[in-house]
C-alpha cells in the first residue's frame, strides 16, 4: 500500500482565490444596479463588453507566455479588472475607449509584469489613467441622469438598450447636444461666484448632499463594501484609512460654504469615485501594502492625495492618480510597517541593508 508523503498542514481551508474574486464581483452589484437605474444600460453594456475583452486579451497573452490558459482564466482576476474599469469609465463610453483601457490594463498593467500577483500597479487604474489622459473629452462625457427631465424637460434622460448599443458601437452615435452633463465635482471645482447653497439650488446636478444620482451610487458601493468587510474578504484598514483621511482633509480645508468652498466632507465622501475607490480599488491586495498598519497608511495616503488633487490639482477627480502614486510607495510602506513579531520587544523595520 503506497501511502502519500506530504508536508503539514494536511487540512486545508476551503477559501479560494476564485471565491474572493467572485465575492468582489458580487459586491459591485448594488452599485451596478444603481448606475443602471440612473444612467441607463450603458454601464451593463460596458461591463459585459469589457469582460469579454479582458478574457480574450488575457487568454491571448497567456497563450503567448505559454501558460495554462484555463487555469489562470478561472482565477477571475481579469474579470475583476474589467468590471472595475467598466464601472469607472463613463456609461456609453465608445467601444474603442473601453478596448484600449481594458487591453492596456491586462497586457501592460498585469501580464507583462508576470501575471496575477506580480503587478506593482492596480491594472484597472492604470488602464483608466491611460484613456483619461489620452481621451479627456470622451472620459468626461457623463450622460444625464434619470430625473433630469423633471428639471430640464428637453434633455432625454436614459437611453434604451438598443440606443445604448448603437451609441457605444456605432461611429456616429456620439453627437447629441446637451446629452452629457458636468459632474458635481467638476461644477464645484470650476465654480467661483456662487455660494454652496446657491450652487445646490441653481444646478440640478446636485442632490441631497452630493451629486444627484451619484450619492445613491456611492451608497450602493458602500453597501457592497460593507458586505465584503463582513465576509472578511479584506480588512477594514485600507478603506477606513482612505475615507478617514479624505474626510479629515475636506474638514480641514472646507473653506466654509462660500464661493471658494472646496465642498463639505460629506460631499467629498459621496462624490466621484470615492466609495468605489475605497472599497474596490485601494483594497486590491496585490498592489497595496501588506500589513494592517501598512494598509492604513496606504489608504490614508490615497485619501490625502485624492483631496489634494481635487482641491488644488488639475483634475476634478483623482482616485486613479492617487492610487497609482500610492502603489509606487507600497513596497516602502511594507518595509516600514512590519508588525511586531511574537517574542520581540519591538518591530524590526526598514530595509535592513547597510549599503
Amino acid at each position, binding site marked *: 500500500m503506497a501511502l502519500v508523503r506530504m508536508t503539514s*498542514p494536511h487540512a486545508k481551508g476551503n477559501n479560494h482565490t476564485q471565491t474572493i474574486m467572485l465575492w468582489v464581483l458580487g459586491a459591485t452589484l448594488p452599485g451596478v444596479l444603481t448606475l443602471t437605474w440612473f444612467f441607463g444600460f450603458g454601464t451593463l453594456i460596458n461591463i459585459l463588453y469589457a469582460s469579454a475583452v479582458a478574457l480574450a486579451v488575457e487568454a491571448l497573452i497567456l497563450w503567448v507566455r505559454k501558460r495554462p490558459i484555463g487555469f489562470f482564466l478561472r482565477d477571475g482576476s481579469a474579470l475583476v479588472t474589467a468590471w472595475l474599469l467598466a464601472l469607472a469609465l463613463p456609461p456609453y463610453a465608445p467601444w474603442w475607449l473601453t478596448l484600449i483601457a481594458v487591453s492596456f490594463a491586462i497586457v501592460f498593467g498585469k501580464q507583462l509584469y508576470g501575471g496575477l500577483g506580480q503587478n506593482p500597479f492596480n491594472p484597472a487604474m492604470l488602464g483608466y489613467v491611460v484613456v483619461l489622459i489620452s481621451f479627456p473629452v470622451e472620459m468626461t462625457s457623463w450622460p444625464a441622469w434619470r430625473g433630469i427631465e423633471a428639471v430640464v424637460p428637453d434633455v432625454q434622460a436614459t437611453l434604451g438598450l438598443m440606443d445604448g448599443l448603437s451609441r457605444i458601437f456605432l461611429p456616429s452615435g456620439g453627437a447629441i447636444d446637451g446629452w452629457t452633463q458636468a459632474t458635481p465635482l467638476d461644477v464645484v471645482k470650476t465654480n467661483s461666484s456662487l455660494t454652496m447653497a446657491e450652487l445646490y439650488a441653481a444646478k440640478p446636478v446636485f442632490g441631497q448632499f452630493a451629486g444627484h444620482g451619484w450619492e445613491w451610487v456611492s451608497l450602493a458601493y458602500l453597501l457592497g463594501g460593507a458586505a465584503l468587510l463582513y465576509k472578511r474578504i479584506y480588512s477594514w484598514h485600507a478603506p477606513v484609512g482612505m475615507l478617514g483621511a479624505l474626510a479629515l482633509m475636506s474638514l480641514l480645508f472646507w473653506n466654509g460654504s462660500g464661493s471658494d468652498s472646496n465642498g463639505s466632507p460629506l460631499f467629498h465622501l459621496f462624490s466621484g469615485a470615492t466609495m468605489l475607490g475605497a472599497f474596490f480599488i485601494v483594497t486590491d491586495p496585490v498592489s497595496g501594502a501588506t500589513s*494592517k498598519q501598512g494598509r492604513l497608511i496606504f489608504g490614508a495616503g490615497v485619501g490625502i492625495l485624492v483631496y489634494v488633487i481635487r482641491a488644488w490639482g488639475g483634475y476634478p477627480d483623482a482616485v486613479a492618480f492617487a492610487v497609482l502614486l500610492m502603489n509606487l510607495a507600497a513596497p516602502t510602506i511594507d518595509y516600514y510597517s512590519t508588525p511586531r513579531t*511574537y517574542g520581540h520587544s519591538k518591530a524590526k523595520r526598514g530595509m535592513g541593508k547597510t549599503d
Partner: protein
Amino acid sequence: MTAATPIRIWDIPGGIHPAENKTQSLGHGIEIAPLPALLTVPLQQHLGGRAEPCVSVGDTVLKGQIIAEASSMVSCPVHAPTSGTVTAIGPAPYPHASGLEEWAIHIEADGDDRWCELQPVTDFRALEPVTLLELIRQAGISGLGGAGFPTAVKLKARPEQKIHTLIINGTECEPYITADDSAMRYRAPEIIAGIEILMHVLQPEQVLIGIEDNKPEAAQAMRAAVGERAMQVVVFPTKYPSGGEKQLIQILTGKEVPSGGLPADLGMVCQNVGTLLAIHDAVVLGQPLIKRITTLTGEALSHPTNVEALIGTPIRELLDFAGLQPDKLFRLVMGGPMMGFTLQSLDAPLVKTTNCLLAGTRDELPPPPPAQPCIRCGLCAEACPASLLPQQLHFFALGKDYDQLKRQHLFDCIECGACSYVCPSSIPLVQYYRAAKSDIRALDLQQHKADHSRQRFEHRQERLQREAEQKERDRLARAEKAARIKAAKEAEAAKQAESGAGTPTSDAPAPKAGGLSPEQKQLKIAAATAQMALKKAQKQLVANPDNAELQAQIPQLEQAARQAQEAFDQAQGESSNQPAAPAPQAGGDDETKKLKIEAAMLRAALKKAERSAGDSPSEEQQAEIAKLREQVEAADARIPASTTTKKPVDEKLKQAKLDLAMARAALKKTERALSENPEDADLQAQLANQQQACQSAETALHEAENNSPIPPPQRQLVDKKPVDEQLRALKTSMATCKADFKRAERELKDAEQAGGDTVAAQQHLDTARAALDVAAKAFADYMASKETN
C-alpha cells in the same frame, strides 16, 4: 491564591478555526491495546542524544527494565515495555518525517507481561526535589505533547531562574486529537497527583491548567479532581493554535516568551497533561514510561478510539485494532492534521511522542490543489499567531533572500500551518519556510566550517613563516659563529707570531675540554643574532632617520637582544654553578679566552681609531674613540678574574675606573701633542692640569676600591704594581714610530708642494706606517696578554 479568583484570559493574534473532528474518537473511553507479539523500541524517541543499549541480543528482559541508557544530559533512557527476549538491535522503521530508519531494540514478548521490581514512592513530599527529578529522568520521561524534550531537563532548563508559574497544557488545539482530552476525562486524579509532584519539585506560586472550551467534560473532571488545591483550571475559547507552548503562555499570562528563549526565562514551565500522567506513574507507581494514550482516528478506521498502548507496538497492529480499512487509507499522519507528518510505513512503532495516528481517506485529506499565484490578500498575516507576514516570507523564500528572511523573523515561525490553511491560492507556505530554514541552517553551518578552515589556514601560514624565520636566524647565527672562530684563529696566529711567547691560554692550568653546552651555544647564537639585528636596524635608522617603522623596531630589538643576552648569561651562570658539570673550569676558561680575544680585538680597533684620528681628531672621531674605549673597558670587565665567569660589578668602582681611563687618555693625547710641539706653552699647562686630574681620578679609584663591597681578590687593582718595563718600551717605540710616521707624512706633503721627488718620501711614509702598525699591534697584544695574566 484561591481557585475562585478569576484569571484574565488574553487573546492571541491570528489563529484559525478548522473543523474539529474530535467526536469520532471519543466514544469508547480509553481502551487497552492488545499486547503485541513483537515490539520495536527505538533508541531515539526524544530530542537530544540517542540512548545507548545496555542489553544484548538474546537477553531476557522484564517489563520496565532499562534497556538503553541516556547517553548525555539531554537524553532519555528507554525501558522494556513488556517482558520477553531481545531478538535484535539495529535499524528499524521509525515514525519520522524523513521516513528514515532508526536504531531500535526488538523484543519478542513472552506474553507474561511480568514487571521487574518496582520501587514506588509512598510519600513523594519526603523526597528532595533533586531526587524526584532524578526519578523522572530515570523513568525516561520526555514531553508527550509532541516535541519530546526530556522532561527533567526542561524542568531545570534555567537552574538560576525561580519558576513562579507552572502551566499545564490541556489545550489540545489540533483537530482530531483527543488523547489529552481522554486522559483528563478518565485519569484526572492521576494528572493532579503528577501536578503535585511537579509543584513539590518547582515550588511555583501559581498553577494554571489551560483547557479549551471545546472540552467541557475534561474541564469538569479536572475541576473535580483539583478540589481545594491551589491550582486553577482556566477554560478559554477554542482557537488553533492555542495549544502551542508560547501561545498558551500568552493566553494565560499575557506574556511572550522572548525570541530564542525559553518559558523558563519568564519563570514559567509548561507541561503537557500526558507528561504529568507519566510523572505520576513514575513516582507514585514506580513505573517508567513504557505506555501512552494515543488517539486512533480518521475515516479509514471503522472504530476510531483512544488506546493506552505500549511504546514499541507496531502501528499496523494499533490501526488494525481500530478497524483499519486498508483500501480506504490514503494519508497516514502521526500527530494532528495541522502539524503532523505523514508516515510511509505501517511497520513503524508507536513512540513516546505519538499522540495521534490519523488514517485519512482521500476525501478527508485530499491532496492540495495546484498552487496559484500569491495575491497578497493578507489572510495568512491575519491568521499568523506569531504576527509574522507570511506573504512576505513567501516572497523572500522564493527569491532565497535569506537576509530578509532573518530580518522578517523566519525563525520565530512555529510552523503551525495556519497560513497554509487559510491561503486562498493553496500555496504550501509552511513548506517554503521549512525549506528556507534548513537552507539557512545549512548555510550557517557551511559558514561556520569555512571560518574554521580559514582560521586553521591562517595559523598554519603563521607557523610556516615562524619556522622559516627561525631557519634564517639559525643560518645567520652559524655564519656569525664561523666568522668569529675564523677571526679568533687569525688573532691567535698573529699573537703567536708577534709575541713569540706562549699564548696566554697555553698558560692556563685547566685542561682544554668541553666548552659551551648545546643550549648555551644556542642561546649565545640567539643573543648574537638579536644583537646583530639591533645593530643593523640602528645602521638603517642612521641612514633613514625619519623611518618610523625602524624607530619603533629598535626598542623591540633592544629588548629582544637584552633578553637573549640575559638568557645566555643566566644559562652560563647556571652551568658555572653546577658542581656536577663535567668541566666547568675548562668551559669557563674557554669562555674567558674568547672574551679576552674580543677585548684585544676591541683594543686594536681603538688603537686604529686613535691612529686614524691623528693629532687633531674631529668630534666624531673623538666620540668614536671614547665609545670604543668604553667597549674595551666593558670587555675587560666581562673577562672573569678567576673561576667565575661573571664578575660582580661595583658601579662606583667602574665609574671611577672609567674616569681614570678617560683622564689618562686625555693626558696621553696631550703628551702626544706636546711631543710634536714641545714649545707649546698651552699644551704644557694642559698637560699639567691633566696630570693633576689623572692623579685625582686615581685617588678616587683607590677610594672606590676600598669602599667596594666586592672582596679585593676579585678586583683588578689598578696601578698598584710597578709600571711594566716592557710596556714602557713598547709605548716608547710606538711613540717613536708615530713621530716617524708624522714626519714622513709632512715630508711627503712638502715634496708634493715643492714638486720634488715624492717617490722617496712615499716610500719613507710607507715604511713609517708599517713600523707604526707593527708597534701598535705589539703594544695591543702585550696589553692583552698582560691583562690575561
